[in-house]
């Protein structure tokens, strides 16, 4: 029997949610983030590709999507930081019979800031599900599933996955999603109709380098206070859009490689973005054996390497698409995990780093949250 440790966060604490190939780990620290406690492993033996924290409407809810190679994928939630989890029986995220599809993996979990009951999850095979009751029940977003492009979407190395969901922070009708390898799609009518948002993004692996769709987008971010500006890490290529994805410009200056997976935006500064460049789509490790996070503070006009506290020798690491994130503390925390089972964190926006954990199973996702008071909690 696996010995599971538990954390007991208090209001104001920071919680790190780390999904790995062998389960989920929860870390807790006080607001200063000086000392971290570890909880877990939760769902031992299950791969956890997606985690999220729902602090809306007074909730203190951790979401995880454990996946068993035998028994399939499920959405699970905990209101007590992993001491108990929601029912692991009947699947709440499931394809309707007429689709002739079966859920392979849950890749993304996201909530709307402007509607505490509304949530989305992105899955493989590429599809979007919506919940209007804070995750109790889910339904397939038919407008995207029935898109005429769907039969020509090709799977990327990780499968045909909808891995990124970006609800507009104030307009409930507008959502962007990213699919590997189909590209970015957007809706302006709440999901009924969708159109591509890939103009300017290269598809290096296709004869037509600028198709309407088919790009292998790895991650897209935007800031809640300036949603028209977006940044995109592509399978080859770094991009910025100033018109909510209508068009994209290449911004891969001063980086050792424009290949990579992970991307995160600063919680308080919409001009500050973090990436972890990887060497080539064959090697997929940090260039020159140096673990460097790159940061722009001027909206991707320039990028600088962040190295203090990160190994700069014999560090052939890989950081996956959801394994880099920020918290919302006044002095922003930045965190990432590696396929070698290490977790690093910074409490000053990336200037200095510290290893928070090692020896974990390969890290698939890292998410951070500041714990609320728990008042007005309702399920």
């Amino acid at each position, binding site marked *: 029997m696996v010995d599971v440790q538990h954390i007991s966060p208090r209001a104001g604490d920071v919680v790190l949610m780390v999904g790995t190939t062998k389960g989920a780990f929860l870390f807790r620290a006080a607001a200063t983030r000086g000392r971290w406690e570890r909880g877990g492993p939760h769902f031992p033996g299950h791969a956890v590709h997606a985690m999220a924290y729902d602090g809306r409407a007074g909730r203190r809810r951790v979401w995880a999507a454990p996946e068993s*190679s*035998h028994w*399939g994928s499920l959405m699970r939630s905990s209101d007590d930081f992993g001491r108990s989890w929601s*029912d*692991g029986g*009947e699947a709440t995220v499931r394809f*309707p019979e007429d689709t002739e*599809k079966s*859920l392979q993996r849950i890749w993304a979990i996201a909530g709307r800031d402007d509607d505490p009951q509304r949530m989305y999850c992105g899955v493989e095979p590429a599809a979007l599900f919506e919940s209007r009751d804070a995750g109790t029940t889910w339904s397939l977003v038919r407008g995207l599933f029935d898109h005429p492009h769907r039969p020509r979407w090709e799977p990327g190395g990780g499968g045909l996955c909808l891995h990124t969901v970006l609800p507009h922070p104030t307009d409930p009708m507008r959502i962007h999603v990213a699919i590997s390898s189909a590209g970015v799609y957007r809706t302006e009518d709440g999901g009924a109709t969708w159109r591509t948002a890939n103009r300017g993004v290269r598809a290096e692996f296709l004869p037509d380098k600028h198709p309407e769709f088919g790009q292998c987008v790895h991650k897209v971010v935007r800031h809640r206070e300036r949603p028209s500006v977006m940044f995109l890490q592509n399978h080859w290529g770094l991009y910025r859009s100033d018109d909510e994805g209508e068009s994209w410009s290449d911004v891969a200056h001063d980086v050792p490689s424009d290949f990579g997976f992970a991307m995160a935006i600063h919680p308080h500064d919409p001009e500050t973005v973090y990436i972890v460049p990887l060497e080539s789509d064959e090697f997929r490790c940090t260039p020159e054996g140096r673990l460097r996070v790159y940061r722009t503070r001027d909206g991707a006009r320039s990028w600088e390497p962040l190295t203090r506290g990160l190994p700069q020798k014999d560090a052939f690491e890989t950081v996956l698409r959801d394994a880099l994130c920020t918290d919302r503390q006044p002095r922003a925390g930045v965190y990432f995990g590696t396929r070698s089972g290490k977790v690093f964190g910074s409490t000053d926006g990336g200037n200095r780093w510290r290893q928070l954990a090692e020896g974990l199973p390969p890290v698939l996702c890292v998410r951070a949250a500041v714990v609320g008071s728990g008042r007005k909690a309702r399920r």
Partner: protein
Amino acid sequence: MRVTFVLPGPLHPLAGGREEVTVDAPAARVADALAALWTVHPALRDRVMTEEGRLRPHVNVFVGRDSVRYTGGLDTPLRDGAEVAILPAISGG
């Protein structure tokens, strides 16, 4: 007809903690017996079957000692009193 299912450890919590569940199946195929099992313990269905109604790729069902993958799949016939084992395949990493 009566069919007894033998369940693996990870599925016991979804069957009220039971290792074995006996059902009355209205017809004589594995699919019918499984449908009767889902009626008693509905949470088992999504762990054993995909939404498309197929056995999950790494889940095996045996009637006696024979895997149904080689005896007709879900249409494999059953006799009254049959023992059906649901087992995880040797897989994973």
